[in-house]
């Protein structure tokens, strides 16, 4: 069966510091991968998605970037964090376009 892993589970970072969140999927090949952010505990917003290695689509202009260095690895990064980057970040995967998406357990990011 397929599993999705995110780490770390929680992270506290100072303003201006860099960020790297990692997500990996097991048990499937060539998945679509997604990064979502949830602010204030209500509603998720799609940040990035990827349909293959090195292919990244951005949905919302922001201080963040994403990369997919391997088939089942998706990384969310920032060079300098802002206070507004605080939130709950979830990674998801699907078998392809129009397929159901399955979510990881999320990373709770606090910026001080």
């Amino acid at each position, binding site marked *: 069966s397929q599993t999705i892993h995110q780490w770390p589970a929680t992270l506290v970072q100072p303003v201006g510091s860099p960020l790297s969140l990692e997500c990996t999927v097991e048990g499937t090949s060539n998945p*679509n991968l*997604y990064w*979502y952010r949830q602010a204030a*505990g*209500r*509603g*998720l*917003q*799609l940040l990035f*998605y990827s*349909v293959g290695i090195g292919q990244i*689509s951005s*949905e919302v202009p922001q201080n963040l970037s994403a990369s997919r260095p391997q088939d089942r690895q998706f990384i969310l990064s920032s060079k300098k964090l802002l206070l507004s980057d605080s939130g*709950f970040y*979830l990674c998801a995967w*699907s078998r392809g*376009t*129009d*397929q*159901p*998406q*399955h*979510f990881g*357990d*999320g990373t*709770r990011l606090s910026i001080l």
Partner: protein
Amino acid sequence: GIQVEQSPPDLILQEGANSTLRCNFSDSVNNLQWFHQNPWGQLINLFYIPSGTKQNGRLSATTVATERYSLLYISSSQTTDSGVYFCAALEYGNKLVFGAGTILRVKS
């Protein structure tokens, strides 16, 4: 883009009661999903239901795509059903648009 509206925003139930959550969407969709977010933040897949009716234990869901709404039924509610319920519609191939959620609290 597509708009997704959920109602009610908040719901308090006594254990054992039944409830219906509603999701309206503004355009035709290829994919509609219901999720339960537990108090630890985990987002659990409940249903993938672009149309028709599905049942899983005490939960069932119905989507009427032509009328652009979906319903989630919870029967014989338990305290473990507490949390936030989200519906999400696929706007185009890869973008799930989430509603604001229904916060459910089941009291014992």
